[in-house]
């Protein structure tokens, strides 16, 4: 009789595993693979990013979009590898900051939480403004005049309310809608791209490959912006508690999201460059690049549909980013770093209601301030995405540093992980430095917002260390296994 048979007949008692996880209150092990995939895809928002980011990258890098995208893809895949080391081993609603806390301690965890919160919040704001702007573009294109900052502001408020309602109801509905919208938008986009390519001359088709390399500054800054096209892929990790078989689902979701959106971006960027040459359009800083392309290719209806798809993709991006942000805030509330009230969950719907009540209003308010300050919506978006990129990259660097430390602590470090994560951390730190310098030179508003965030985060850190030492010490809570998970549990 084998030990396994004996254990099945008479399961052993396991010390340290209780009936209840510190993250109790959120749903557990109920969200399927498709919905988790929708979270990552929604947060990444490939339809919106494929449409708008080439224009934003080209501002920094000129005609070397493709190189920047490939570099960003490689770096983000490395980050995915580091995050995957954690998501295969623990389920944590706080995701990145919880991982970093487990690897290199609560101070680094706090910085990561700040980076993550800024990344998610500013992308959500970017999404809200983008959605409002796309709706306006669509309305204008069908003849309804609606282009003023006040209308955009109203749109942001209305869409923020939609986000709150959807998020409060639970992620399943929003996730399914998100996925359908993204798939439809990406298919429309591919149709447009193929149409454009089929009508472009050989000269235009070859042009994107002939573009010379930009200077190192432009290349790195372009890569940093290109990274923002991929950010959000890791938000599946924030559903670690809620996902079915999370240690399988979450890493698999991240992997497939990265693979698919990477190809979509490359194709989109290539087409915009080739189409731009073919139809004499400027890609850089063009907020209606796709509409112009579809007009140029003689399929204006496709462009109108894409505007609509883009609007929904932006909204999906806001919803998914807020989903992740709310879980970070919820987790910090459970630990006692933030007030306990934000760790409150809706007893009927098992959603993090306390956190949502804080993060949604904040996400609506800041874009309104920017618009009221006289920024055009497109300009506001470019500021928001720049700040978000800084937050994300800081969090990514720390995760890459924390992964080997964590594996060493639990005795599972291998040499390939050590070298891989080390290379990613060094490269991303370089990208961050150059990016901050470039943003400082071209976009002082974004840099001063980063400064405000750093000051706020710094004083928050001091306050928590002085006044909430027990909350600080509790950082790193995650969804622990419960007795039901064990053999003989029930």
């Amino acid at each position, binding site marked *: 009789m*084998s*030990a*396994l048979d*004996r254990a099945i007949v008479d399961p*052993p008692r396991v010390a340290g595993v209780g009936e209840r996880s510190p993250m109790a209150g959120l749903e557990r092990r109920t969200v399927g693979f498709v919905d988790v995939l929708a979270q990552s895809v929604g947060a990444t928002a490939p339809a919106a990013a494929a449409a708008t980011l080439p224009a934003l990258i080209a501002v920094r890098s000129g005609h070397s979009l493709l190189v920047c995208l490939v570099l960003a893809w490689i770096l983000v895949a490395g980050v995915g590898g580091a995050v995957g080391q954690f998501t295969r081993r*623990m389920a944590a609603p706080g995701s990145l900051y919880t991982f970093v806390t487990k690897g290199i301690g609560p101070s680094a965890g706090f910085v990561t939480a700040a980076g993550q919160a800024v990344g998610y919040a500013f992308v959500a704001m970017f999404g809200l403004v983008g959605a409002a702007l796309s709706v306006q573009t669509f309305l204008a294109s069908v003849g309804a005049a609606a282009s003023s900052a006040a209308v955009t502001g109203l749109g942001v408020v209305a869409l923020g309310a939609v986000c709150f309602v959807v998020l409060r109801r639970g992620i399943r509905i929003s996730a399914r809608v998100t996925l359908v919208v993204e798939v439809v938008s990406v298919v429309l986009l591919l149709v447009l791209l193929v149409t454009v390519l089929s009508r472009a001359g050989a000269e235009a088709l070859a042009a994107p490959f002939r573009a010379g390399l930009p200077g190192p500054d432009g290349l790195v800054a372009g890569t940093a912006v290109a990274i923002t096209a991929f950010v959000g892929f890791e938000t599946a990790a924030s559903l670690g508690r809620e996902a079915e078989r999370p240690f399988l689902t979450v890493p698999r979701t991240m992997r497939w999201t990265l693979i698919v959106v990477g190809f979509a971006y490359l194709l989109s960027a290539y087409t915009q460059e080739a189409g731009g040459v073919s139809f004499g359009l400027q890609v850089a800083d063009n907020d209606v690049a796709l509409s112009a392309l579809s007009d140029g290719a003689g399929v204006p209806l496709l462009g109108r549909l894409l505007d609509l798809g883009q609007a929904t993709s932006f909204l999906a991006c806001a919803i998914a980013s807020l989903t992740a942000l709310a879980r970070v805030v919820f987790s910090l509330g459970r630990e006692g770093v933030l007030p306990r009230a934000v760790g409150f969950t809706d007893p009927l719907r098992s959603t993090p209601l306390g956190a949502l009540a804080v993060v949604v209003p904040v996400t609506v308010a800041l874009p309104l301030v920017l618009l009221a300050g006289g920024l055009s919506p497109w300009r506001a978006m470019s500021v928001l995405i720049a700040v978000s990129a800084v937050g994300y990259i800081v969090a990514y660097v720390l995760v890459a540093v924390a992964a080997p430390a964590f594996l060493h602590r*639990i005795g599972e470090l291998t040499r390939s992980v050590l070298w891989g994560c080390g290379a990613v951390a060094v490269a991303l730190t370089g990208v961050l430095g150059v990016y901050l310098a470039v943003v400082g030179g071209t976009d002082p508003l974004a840099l001063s917002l980063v400064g405000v965030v750093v000051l706020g985060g710094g004083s928050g850190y001091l306050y928590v260390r002085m006044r909430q030492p027990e909350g600080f010490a509790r950082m790193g809570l995650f969804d622990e*296994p419960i007795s039901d*998970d064990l053999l003989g549990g029930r």
Partner: protein
Amino acid sequence: MSPGGDAGGRQPHAVRSALSVLEEVARAGPGITAKQISAALGLPRATTYRLVNLLVQDEYLVRLPDLSGFALGHRVTLLASNAVPDRERETAEILAGMRARIRAGVHLASFRHGHLELVDVDPDFPLAAAALGDPPEIGADPGAAALDLLPAAGAVERYVVCVGQPGYGSLAAAVRDDAGVLVAGVALAVPAPRLEDPAGLFALIHDDVERLRMVLTRG
């Protein structure tokens, strides 16, 4: 991308390794680390880490709250629900064959938990009520009383005999695992005269006991 798909390409080998990981966790008990599993099984560390993560993904293993220790997961019962009915069915078949062939009551008892538990009582030769009690007073029924003598018998004894008062008694054959540990006993309930040639009686069931040993000690 299928579960187990990246465990090294040589699938049958990977499956065997995965089962040996589960076996090692069961043997060592909750809290064993991946490093310890790798050392105990002589598997390369990177392979072991991949295997334990795959087993955690499929919920055969659970990573404990300290994040370094492992315990068996709830899905391990899926392995059992296939294995146990097979074993029960084969055991029942062997006993049915014995009962059809031999003019005697055939009772099976398990010693797996260190004490006697009646597992399968011959319905045509009911035992005294006290023998079926909890805990069983097996000595109360001469038709099974020999089972009570098995734990005290030496590891080389293949059977023991016990004759009771009303001219009735039993022979109990020992089922031992490879290490000589008593796992089960089969009792033949027969009239006392037939116990005068215990070796002849045992010869009748020798092959059945061997088959039971194979079924009940199978890993």
